[in-house]
């Protein structure tokens, strides 16, 4: 018997005991009709070859281990960034269970969202009654200030009309006529979660700015000196939003952070569950129309929102998840140019500290090859940072990256001598990445939690940056934007590099001459 009351063995130890090992070996041999181990080995080796890579890249229909999710996830993420707003997803209820679980697993926080729970009858007759009852229940139970509606693919396939449904629901008294119910159609078979973020945010702004679906006069823009900032779909929203706000305050810029979910995804444990916390006030969301300009930290999360804002007369700036010195420079100089505010000495000093740190550590990063995957903007931001560290972002892959995105990444490669041997892969998945890592190995992989399978199979050490991160805790509380955020990313990369060097030099009397105490 392996188990022990005084020293309880967990799954990772328990099953290594001889009784279990014997049992599992018997199970396999007797009952699983297993493949010949030599054949398994042969295929395992074959899957590492250029020949396999060619077949793998010839795939036209099958997607394996994609690095993207579907639209409504992004819509829910954006909606909870508004004051006391409950996301309401019209369609099948299982989807909502999935979004809530997914967000909770990343942020280690509650994630509140409701569904209209459509079933077979709604598939036949449409989901109007589900909307009518659903809005009434949500409003009575959870007392939100706003309910932001989006859709699952079921509602999209049967063609439910949100605008008409919400209007009818209001007529039937589900919620008061003046109650804010912005909406966005977010079909899961178009784009990805970043598209859903974009659609939901645009839907909310459209609601407030363009006359609340014909129930109020459109707002007249009266320009002021404020700046709106949009974070985009961002796993680091908690740390990043706070860092952006700090920078704006340092520069003395009056601002509105749109879809600010940094509080609701970081509530304290103090005896009270806050279903709603923080968020952009509805008043600020409406008044955001008057701002001088809107800066989106992630262009590909705001492809429709930014032109919508621009059409209302504001200047818009789209950045690509800026990480590091140049990215942050661009952000801060844009803020300064738009507002006429000087860049304070404190930020110059922060910049200097990041440059200092990069100079101190550059020898360990310079010339190292990296593979990066993630959302389009994150890939651009990280690739830019690696280039300025003298590293090579050899493979850059975004399952939800488009051709235009690929051109932008290529232009970034072309701007640096370190980008000369780098390649971009739009629309590819992590099984493609597996082939890339086998056939053109790199030193490190940067990606989300699912990258651990690539690390296991190819031996490429994984630096966890992205969304979702399920198997490491609390990194989302740290910023990756701003000079201080760049410092965090630098440290995460360096920690992995040093851990790897130590791991590769620790065999006594064999390799440990390099097991240096100073690096």
């Amino acid at each position: 018997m392996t188990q022990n009351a005084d020293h309880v063995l967990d799954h990772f130890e328990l099953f290594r005991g001889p009784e279990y090992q014997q049992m599992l070996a018997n199970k396999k041999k007797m009952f699983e009709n297993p493949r010949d181990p030599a054949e398994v080995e042969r295929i395992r080796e074959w899957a590492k070859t250029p020949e396999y890579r060619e077949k793998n890249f010839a795939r036209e229909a099958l997607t394996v281990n994609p690095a993207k999710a579907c639209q409504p996830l992004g819509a829910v993420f954006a909606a909870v960034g508004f004051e006391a707003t409950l996301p309401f997803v019209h369609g099948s209820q299982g989807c909502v269970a999935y979004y809530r679980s997914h967000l909770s697993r990343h942020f280690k926080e509650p994630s509140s969202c409701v569904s209209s729970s459509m079933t077979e009858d709604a598939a036949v007759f449409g989901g109007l009654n589900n909307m009518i009852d659903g809005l009434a229940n949500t409003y009575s139970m959870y007392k939100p200030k706003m309910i932001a509606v989006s859709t699952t693919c079921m509602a999209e396939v049967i063609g439910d009309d949100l605008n008409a449904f919400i209007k009818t629901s209001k007529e039937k008294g589900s919620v008061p006529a003046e109650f804010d119910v912005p909406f966005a159609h977010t079909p899961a078979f178009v784009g990805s979660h970043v598209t859903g973020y974009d659609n939901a945010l645009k839907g909310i702004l459209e609601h407030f700015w363009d006359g609340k679906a014909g129930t109020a006069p459109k707002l007249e823009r009266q320009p002021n000196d404020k700046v709106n900032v949009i974070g985009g779909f961002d796993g680091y929203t908690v740390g990043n939003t706070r860092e952006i706000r700090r920078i704006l305050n340092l520069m003395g810029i009056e601002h509105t952070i749109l879809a600010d979910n940094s509080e609701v995804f970081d509530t304290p444990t103090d005896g009270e569950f806050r279903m709603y916390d923080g968020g952009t006030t509805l008043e600020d969301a409406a008044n955001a129309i008057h701002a001088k300009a809107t800066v989106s930290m992630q262009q590909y999360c705001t492809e429709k929102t930014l032109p919508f804002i621009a059409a209302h007369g504001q200047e818009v700036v789209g950045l690509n998840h800026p990480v590091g010195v140049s990215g942050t420079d661009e952000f801060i100089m844009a803020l300064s140019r738009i507002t006429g505010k000087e860049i304070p000495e404190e930020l110059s000093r922060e910049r200097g500290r990041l440059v200092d740190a990069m100079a101190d550590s550059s020898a360990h990063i310079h010339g190292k090859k990296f593979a990066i995957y993630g959302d389009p903007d994150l890939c651009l931001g990280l690739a830019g940072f690696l280039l300025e560290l003298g590293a090579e972002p050899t493979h850059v892959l975004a399952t939800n990256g488009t051709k235009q995105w690929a051109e932008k990444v290529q232009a970034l490669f072309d701007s640096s001598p370190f980008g000369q041997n780098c390649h971009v892969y739009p629309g590819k998945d992590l099984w493609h990445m597996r082939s890339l890592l086998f056939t053109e190995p790199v030193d490190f992989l940067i990606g989300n939690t699912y990258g651990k399978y690539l690390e296991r199979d190819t031996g490429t050490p994984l630096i966890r940056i992205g969304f979702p991160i399920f198997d490491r805790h609390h990194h989302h509380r740290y910023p990756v934007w701003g000079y201080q955020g760049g410092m965090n990313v630098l440290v995460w990369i360096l920690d992995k590099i040093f851990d790897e060097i130590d791991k590769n030099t620790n065999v006594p009397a064999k390799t440990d001459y390099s097991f240096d105490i100073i690096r």
Partner: protein
Amino acid sequence: MSLTKTQSVAEIKARNKELIAEVLAVYPEKTAKRRAKHLNVHEAGKSDCGVKSNIKSVPGVMTIRGCAYAGSKGVVWGPIKDMIHISHGPVGCGQYSWAARRNYYIGTTGIDTFVTMQFTSDFQEKDIVFGGDKKLAKIMDEIQELFPLNNGITVQSECPIGLIGDDIEAVSKSKSKEYDGKTIVPVRCEGFRGVSQSLGHHIANDAIRDWIFDKIAPDAPAKFEPTPYDVAIIGDYNIGGDAWSSRILLEEMGLRVIAQWSGDGSLAELEATPKAKLNVLHCYRSMNYISRHMEEKYGIPWCEYNFFGPSKIAESLRKIASYFDDKIKEGAERVIAKYQPLMDAVIARYRPRLEGKTVMLFVGGLRPRHVIGAYEDLGMEVVGTGYEFGHNDDYQRTAQHYVKDGTLIYDDVTGYEFEKFVEKIQPDLVGSGIKEKYVFQKMGVPFRQMHSWDYSGPYHGYDGFAIFARDMDMAINSPIWKKTLPPWKAVPKPALMAAE
């Protein structure tokens, strides 16, 4: 923390009834009427818990339930390790359920084993408009080329498939023929079917019947020499290794486990199961259908068992043994005796730390009753419980064998109800899922995830009980719960606070 200890059963019942009335008051009238049928206070001696179940969730209330796809792909089929399960439709469903359920297995992932991978047809607008059958056929070809050691394919339908009129059965049949009778199983588990995961379990069970059992030649010989002691484990998903810490006990008592459904299971094991002498059924809710089918068609009896906590384990081992000869009956006694010292040591260590603590549960289709015995072995008391997707037969079993007089019962509980119940009852521990975990921890209530074992486990079997006891102790007795209020605000707080 708990208030229940000082109250009589009558007082508890009165309080629970009052609580139910209180939560119902928040709803619009129509909804209050519907929800009232799902909430009750258990009366000892009744044959069920007095609640309606397995009916549609009310829109907009924040149900905890999932969908039929989750029941089929996520629960029943997903763990079958040597088959490739295609999440057929848009990317999200497969993405959110990717490797999230901790169905442990042994195998070379991506080569001969595929559980923790996400295969999807990633539907685009054109697939919705023109249909996805051609794409599906091509996907199967690409799977055959890139994953040649797969032993079969299943098609797990997402919502759009049934709405756009795709014929996944035709594609599966024609591809099966093309690949020499390869097992290819179309599953109609679109998320809008039924009211929860539960119909997905049933559909998945039926798909095994129709596309695996019915394809086996009736006189085909077993791939192994049968013995009188062959059993199959049905309805154990090997979460954190549960099926392994169960299998070892069955084998130690002299039985031979010829199949695991479906945790760490393989196609060969599914196919071999009609040769079993007894099916032992852990998760009744998700796999009673196939057990009944095998009883009717192959004459295999089935026996429900419960491997949570030493009392129920011993009871179950004896019950299983009762289907066999004295050799097995003696084997069961031997196993019980062998683990007695370990159980005594676990209880000696943890019971004093947990005695009298109260628990509220809300889990899927089995655990809301099955884990009660394990808590009681530790001196704890379950004061409220409910099923996410249980049926009336689950509530009958709960009433007849598990819950105490006055227990608060909540079926398909809403977020609001659950928070209010916990706020008022103030249990020492809540056991539910990831969506509930952080809500209650914010309120200062110790919590364990009882779907995923909170990334721990196994909890089944004797080895698992040691981990279960340790985990419950560490949740409840964590020093952090004494720190939820800053010292400058530390006044005794009468109640936990749910969101308003």
